[in-house]
């Protein structure tokens, strides 16, 4: 799958970035292509491009707070998850997402 994601935690200084890293590791371990944007206290980094969003099959929002620009993902399949889950078990999380999606298809 092609995946785009956003990571954002409450304080926006540490977990946001750990979540991004883990999310990318987890997705890559399961053979997906992934781009992840962070919305920390410093603002948006690694901003997703229009093309990345357009070609993505799935959006993963690993967020604990309201994020900016959610309207970009309109009409996309969105998985919403707390940052803690992604940080704890990235690969297992991806596996469960895959399972869930193939069931709901």
């Amino acid at each position, binding site marked *: 799958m092609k995946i785009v994601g956003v990571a954002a935690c409450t304080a926006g200084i540490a977990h946001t970035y750990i979540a991004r890293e883990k999310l990318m590791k987890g997705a890559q371990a399961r053979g997906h292509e992934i781009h992840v944007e962070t919305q920390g206290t410093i603002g948006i980094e690694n901003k997703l491009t229009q093309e990345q969003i357009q070609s993505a099959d799935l959006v993963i929002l690993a967020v604990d707070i309201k994020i900016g620009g959610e309207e970009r993902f309109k009409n996309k399949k969105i998985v919403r998850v707390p940052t803690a889950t992604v940080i704890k*078990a990235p690969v297992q999380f991806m596996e*469960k997402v895959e399972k869930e999606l193939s069931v709901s298809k």
Partner: protein
Amino acid sequence: MAKSKNFTVIKNHILTGISYMLPLIVGAGVCMALGQVIGRLIGAETLEIEGSLPWVLVQIGAWGLGLIVPVIAAAIAYSIADKPGIAPGVIIGFIANQIEAGFIGGILGGFLVGYLVRAIMKYIKVPKSLQGLMPVMIIPLLSITISGLIMYFVIGGPIAYLQNSLIGFLESMQGGSQFLFGGILGSMATFDFGGPVNKTMSMFADGLLVEGVYGPEAVKFVGSIIPPFGITISYFLTKNKYTKSEKESLKAAFPMGIAMITEGVIPIAARDLIKVVGSCVLGSFVAGGLIMTWGVEAPVPHGGLFVVPLFTNPWLFMAALGIGSVITGVTLSLWKKQVTEEDEAFDEMESNSVDDDAIVFTVEG
């Protein structure tokens, strides 16, 4: 399931509020504390002189801190109702400040405004020619008037009463009960290494900070820093009780601890949950109790060891931190068992150590 989902949504709104409030509280809080430190250095009387540098710094901080409640109210309303929530959110927060409903009033006010704005957008229909008036006139006017009246006449009074009695209760506490209270707060701050229990305690402390009660905030510092420090001490006492990858984790966890980020110890706690949590809570209980009894106060909510010089009684804070960390370290070293080969293998399955049911997410679209 539906219930827990609502809970998550509400939690999200509060966390959004806090995330917008944090930089303000840190910036203004440190500025204020800086003024006090400079004032003490060049002579305490300068703090009383209007226009002197320390006086102005303290003023800037105080004015900034006065905006905490409006900002958290506005951010919560924004989280619920998007941009139209901001203006009425700021105002309801200001009202909450004025009628002494403070932090709690601000949070509830934010929710009130947020959902009110959402309802107005949903139920009030205007002819197309007046559509332009909706965001600039109708929504702000209606939401501000209605929520302002509710805040003033209905919920403001009881909240102010609750808040004042809580603060009165905290200030009247002495000796043993103070130690117990600090101990419980310290344990909560440590218990789940930055998880929901820690965040609950943290919000409680932040709320009191806004009201000018600084003790619990110092307990939060000590409770957040003890786990990484204590475990590090334990590692140096008994290196044979830690696996290779735990050693690696500790290299990151310790500096994170200096910055007051507890979560670095989670990988170490995962293998030996009860022992690690148990000894950390024990250390934090004692340290939290000491902080409350010794009257250590933290006028800032975050910043790790770097902001300790701004505390009241920074040396006593360091003493409490040291005592708590040593208790944690020694207890853990005595309690933990030597590493076996099986333990080393545990690290390999890092990503599969979680119960499948613990992984919860929602799928939309």
